[in-house]
């Protein structure tokens, strides 16, 4: 037994095929994204009178849902794999939105109500010049950089202290919730310099091109679809790498992993920061499509909604996050119009039902049925 000869019974050489997706997966992605591109083309190329024309509001709604799907994806990466439940991902989403919103505000130029160089809310506060933290935001590339850096750096600093102190589980969730709540209060103040409770709105253009033009909406829609696909493939690549297996090991037995020689703080920090950056990019794509960003995006309820979307779709599957966000927000946009007062009850009930009867979510159920 102790002889170290070649194994007599040799195990199959390929342990598990660690690939991005199988044939079925790639086909599904191609069909879905092909459909999205087709929708955009029908919107942009056909006349409004045509039977094939896709109306404006559909493009905006689907564009919005894709942004929600992207944050849900970001949350699934850390919650479903590393077991870190953030109830503050709305904060990173909003910060990305605000970072790009600053650029959108400067693109208004002199077309505001007060015809001033400054945004209306600054004129209202009787400010004479841009505060220092608005420096450079008239440059598209700087604001795009901020979209990545602001959520990324905040997440890295917060994560460093939280993970080093070994804060986890429900304590971590509560702290992230408090963090987004504190940020919301901060952004509600007019003196913070981000438009107070009105936030940013009334955008006119991006890169000197009108924001309400069909061409712009078409472009934003396609950019969002591309970003969502890119984020999905990036996350999928991470979780199918050895690092992904380390993340699951962190979720299941973190202290064992430390005794194997892994510095778990570094791994958590990496994936937490990637997740925050994806959420920030989603926020930046969201703002020009819906035309507004205000501190309401940082409200705890928004972040909880993201977690519910992931739970409904199925944790630790990535695709589940997209499915969950699509269903939840599709439902929301219908219910909040048809029965506005029932939405929160429905949301709560959905969460309870999924937790009780579908702990693996919709995609988890599908995977289980397929295995049988």
């Amino acid at each position, binding site marked *: 037994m102790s002889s170290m000869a070649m194994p007599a019974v040799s195990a199959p050489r390929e342990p598990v095929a660690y690939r991005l997706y199988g044939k079925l997966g790639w086909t599904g992605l191609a069909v879905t994204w092909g459909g999205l591109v087709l929708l955009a083309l029908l919107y942009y190329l056909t006349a409004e009178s045509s039977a094939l024309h896709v109306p404006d509001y559909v493009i905006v709604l689907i564009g919005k849902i894709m942004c929600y799907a992207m944050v849900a994806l970001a949350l699934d990466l850390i919650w479903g794999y590393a077991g870190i439940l953030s109830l503050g991902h709305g904060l990173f989403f909003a910060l990305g939105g605000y970072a790009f919103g600053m650029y959108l505000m400067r693109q208004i130029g002199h077309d505001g109500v007060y015809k001033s160089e400054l945004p209306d809310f600054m004129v209202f506060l009787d400010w004479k010049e841009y505060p220092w933290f608005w420096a450079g935001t008239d440059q598209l590339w700087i604001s795009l950089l901020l979209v990545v850096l602001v959520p990324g750096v905040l997440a890295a600093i917060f994560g460093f202290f939280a993970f080093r102190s070994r804060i986890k589980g429900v304590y971590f969730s509560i702290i992230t919730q408090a963090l987004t709540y504190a940020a919301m209060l901060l952004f509600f103040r007019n003196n913070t310099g981000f438009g107070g409770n009105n936030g940013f709105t009334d955008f006119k253009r991006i890169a000197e091109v009108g924001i309400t033009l069909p061409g712009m909406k078409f472009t934003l829609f396609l950019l969002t679809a591309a970003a969502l696909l890119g984020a999905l493939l990036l996350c999928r690549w991470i979780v199918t790498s*050895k690092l992904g297996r380390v993340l699951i090991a962190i979720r*299941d037995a973190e202290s064992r992993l430390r005794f194997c*020689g892994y510095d778990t703080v*570094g791994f958590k920090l990496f994936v937490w920061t990637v997740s925050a950056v994806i959420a920030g990019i989603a926020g930046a794509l969201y703002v020009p499509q819906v035309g507004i960003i205000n501190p309401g995006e940082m409200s705890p309820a928004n972040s909880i909604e993201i977690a519910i979307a992931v739970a409904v779709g199925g944790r630790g599957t990535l695709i589940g996050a997209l499915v969950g966000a699509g269903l939840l927000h599709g439902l929301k946009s219908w219910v909040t119009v048809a029965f506005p007062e029932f939405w929160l009850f429905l949301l709560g009930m959905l969460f309870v039902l999924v937790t009780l009867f579908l702990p693996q979510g919709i995609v988890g159920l599908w995977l289980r049925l397929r295995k049988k």
Partner: protein
Amino acid sequence: MVTAEKEITVDPASFSPDGTVSYNRVVDGSVPDLAHGAILYMDDITVSFDGFRAINKLSLSIDVGELRCIIGPNGAGKTTMMDVITGKTRADSGSAFFGQNMDLSKMSETEIARAGIGRKFQRPTVFEDHSVFENFELALKMDKGVWTTLFAKLSGVQRDRIDEVMTTVGLEARAHDPAGLLSHGQKQWLEIGMLLAQDPKLLLLDEPVAGMTDEETERTAELFVSLAGKHSLIVVEHDMDFVAAIARKVTVLHEGAVIAEGSLQQVKENERVVEVYLGR
């Protein structure tokens, strides 16, 4: 214990079983200096929890390549001692050194594991959602930094090493099953195999045969005996038959301190040991 001048020593890794010869090199602080023949020194260690002294002025030294059994009644401080060695618990006073140069009280759990101390827990702890193969992959000795892990691909040599370890612990047929489906004894074997894959210089094994069948216990004994010499082992065990099968030198702990040390026969004849442990 502190030597004034910097010594040039032969790294014991040069006596590795694969027969490769390395050059003498200066001990650089990232590997334990084993020149004086001891791999672990614990001197006057005390650990207390809320006034209770789990470890009380414990001193212990383990030689390179030694297989040491530690026995003692429940609450004697055996597991706490392992916690101190692996950095899970900090000692209130006293010193613990890995080799002559690595002060364990100043290292994190990860650093201690990387320096070459591996641990098997009392309750088998494996990654239950991962396959047996993946458990070994995670444990396998390699650079465990974030970036290298993100881009890691198993080489043929590494894969052979995993196959070899899987065969050694008899789990090759279960390679692709989730570890959570293994029996208790098989989980024990998996964790022991993960330690082998990690290739530590010093192995700490906390009740490794608990829950194993007689046959499994026998095979474990054979394995440990074959490991001694190439590795140093500290085995904590209650199963006296198992201890008898593997023991060369036995240390008896009681109330956080060493009360006897020697061959199993000597220890068994020690009156104090009979009184507090064996005689019960």
